[in-house]
């Protein structure tokens, strides 16, 4: 089987961009200088303040799934330019740039993997591809991941990381929200578990569709979550936002999250939740 070649290359390309490749790394939250190898061993969580660095989809696969392996599906899906969209850049140029920068074909990787022996349909979003935005490709790949769970009768886990729907595909992006949510209704009818994992950030169109529809919803600490972006809210109401507004902790307090889970405990937590929900 073709184990996941593309992401491996994406991994190294991305590592250069997001994560400083020096011997030491400074935590953006508490300014602690950390030995990079130690940081890596701690899954990119600051040992001092527990700040969760943003990491690539490839890294999540490496520590969440058994043997760090995902049998990837639909890797060849690529965006087209149905609207011939142009702002400061033409959309096809933007896509090409994102592919080069991230080593990914779009903002989500989907496939079949295992967590402690339990086979799951797995999808992981990647912020390095146009802010993890959802256009036709992301919508279609998520839709197929849901259908794969239904067809095989296995649980679904989606790890979200997205600024929302992709503007460059306008109404087509918006409709991916309806498409994925409608299929989740079918998954629910089959009584198959869906665990939604939210990472920093998960907002707008993704948060207002599949990310909010898990049977169980868990988030990494201090992730930015919500429908509207903080800047838009600030402009609308014309006042400063309270500290911690729209964080994971805020949403848990308001009753919209089941649990906040540190990255180092994510795999064990998912395994336990699968044990409880995968009743077949």
């Amino acid at each position, binding site marked *: 089987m073709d184990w996941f070649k593309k992401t491996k290359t994406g991994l190294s390309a991305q590592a250069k961009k997001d994560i400083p490749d020096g011997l030491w790394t400074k935590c953006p939250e508490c300014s602690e200088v950390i030995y990079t190898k130690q940081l890596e061993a701690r899954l990119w969580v600051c040992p001092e303040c527990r700040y969760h660095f943003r990491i690539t989809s490839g890294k999540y696969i490496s520590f969440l799934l058994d043997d760090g392996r995902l049998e990837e599906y639909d890797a060849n899906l690529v965006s087209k330019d149905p609207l011939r969209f*142009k702002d400061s850049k033409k959309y096809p140029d933007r896509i090409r740039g994102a592919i080069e920068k991230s080593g990914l074909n779009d903002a989500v990787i989907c496939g079949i993997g295992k967590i402690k022996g339990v086979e799951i349909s797995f999808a992981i979003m990647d912020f390095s591809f146009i802010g993890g935005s959802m256009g*036709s490709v992301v919508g279609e790949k998520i839709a197929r991941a849901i259908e794969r769970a239904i067809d095989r009768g296995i649980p679904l886990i989606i790890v979200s990381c997205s600024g929302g729907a992709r503007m460059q595909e306008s109404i087509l992006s*918006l*409709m991916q929200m309806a498409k994925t949510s409608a299929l989740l209704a079918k998954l629910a*009818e089959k009584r198959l578990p869906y665990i939604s994992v939210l990472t920093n950030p998960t907002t707008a169109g993704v948060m207002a569709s599949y990310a909010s529809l898990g049977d169980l919803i868990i988030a990494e600490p201090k992730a930015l979550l919500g429908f*509207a*972006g903080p800047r838009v809210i600030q402009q609308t109401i014309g006042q400063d936002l309270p500290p911690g507004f729209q964080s994971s902790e805020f949403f848990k307090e*308001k009753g919209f999250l089941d649990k906040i889970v540190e990255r180092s405990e994510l795999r064990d937590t998912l395994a336990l939740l699968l044990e409880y929900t995968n009743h077949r």
Partner: protein
Amino acid sequence: MNDRQILDFEKPIAELEKKISDMKDFAAGANITLDSEITSLEEKVEKLRHEIFTGLTRWQKVQLARHPRRPYTLDYIQLMMTDFVEFHGDRYFADDKAVVGGFAKIDGRPIMVVGQQKGRDTKAKLFRNFGMMHPEGYRKALRLFKLAEKFNRPVVIMIDTPGAYPGIGAEERGQAEAIARNLREMAVLKVPIVIIIIGEGASGGALGIGVGDRVFMMQYSWYSVISPEGCAAILWRDAAHAPQAAEALKLTSEDLMELGVIDGIIPEPPGGAHNDHRAAALAAKNKIMETLGELEKLPTEQLLAERLEKFRKIGVYGE
């Protein structure tokens, strides 16, 4: 009608129309006939209107969708339906006035009607929160959809919103969750759902009551992932580029028809729905009646399978 209620590109038409009405008054007062002059001016108006309206930019169409005299949901309900009984509240938190709904009859046939409501004057605008719903609005709408399902009544939805409200309370009460839940529940609601975008269809705020069996757009409405201003603020870093964003977003009824996202365009009276509320409502009503007739023939299982397939197939990608 004050000047603010006439759009720039409508002005030449409005001036000619004023001339005609002045001439009519003068002829009546002076007891003379100016019939041939008036007829020729009326022909001129029609020609001018046709010229202007066939050359409208997307941004101008957005202006029409936001026209201060455009018919709103309650206008349509009043003109298309009888015996409307409005219901209030989501049973959890509050009654969101940005959305109205209840049972009504259309040609004597009982339906559930739900729609976003804007206000006409400043006070009403504030009362309706400019048609921007909070989570309790989406939950109120869902409650009414479930009532419709329980009592086997088809649902007619009118969409007219500049977006779901972005505020502290909205986030605290789960704006994203409320919209997401509606998307999932509407996909499997066991009664026919007909949707018409009557004005503005902005983003998840519109889609949150926008999943159904048939989606139509009034000719001069718009529907997009984000408002032109919002898009311009992000991609051009300046909301003043909204006209360019409107072009790029391809958000008109013709655009969405071409993209295969909607099922039809409901033609508006000459010069736009605001010139003749009654004619606009009649066109919408005819489309609703025709569509309900089609949908009610389908067994529920087929209705739901087709609804799923309708959204399942949307998307353009290479493989």
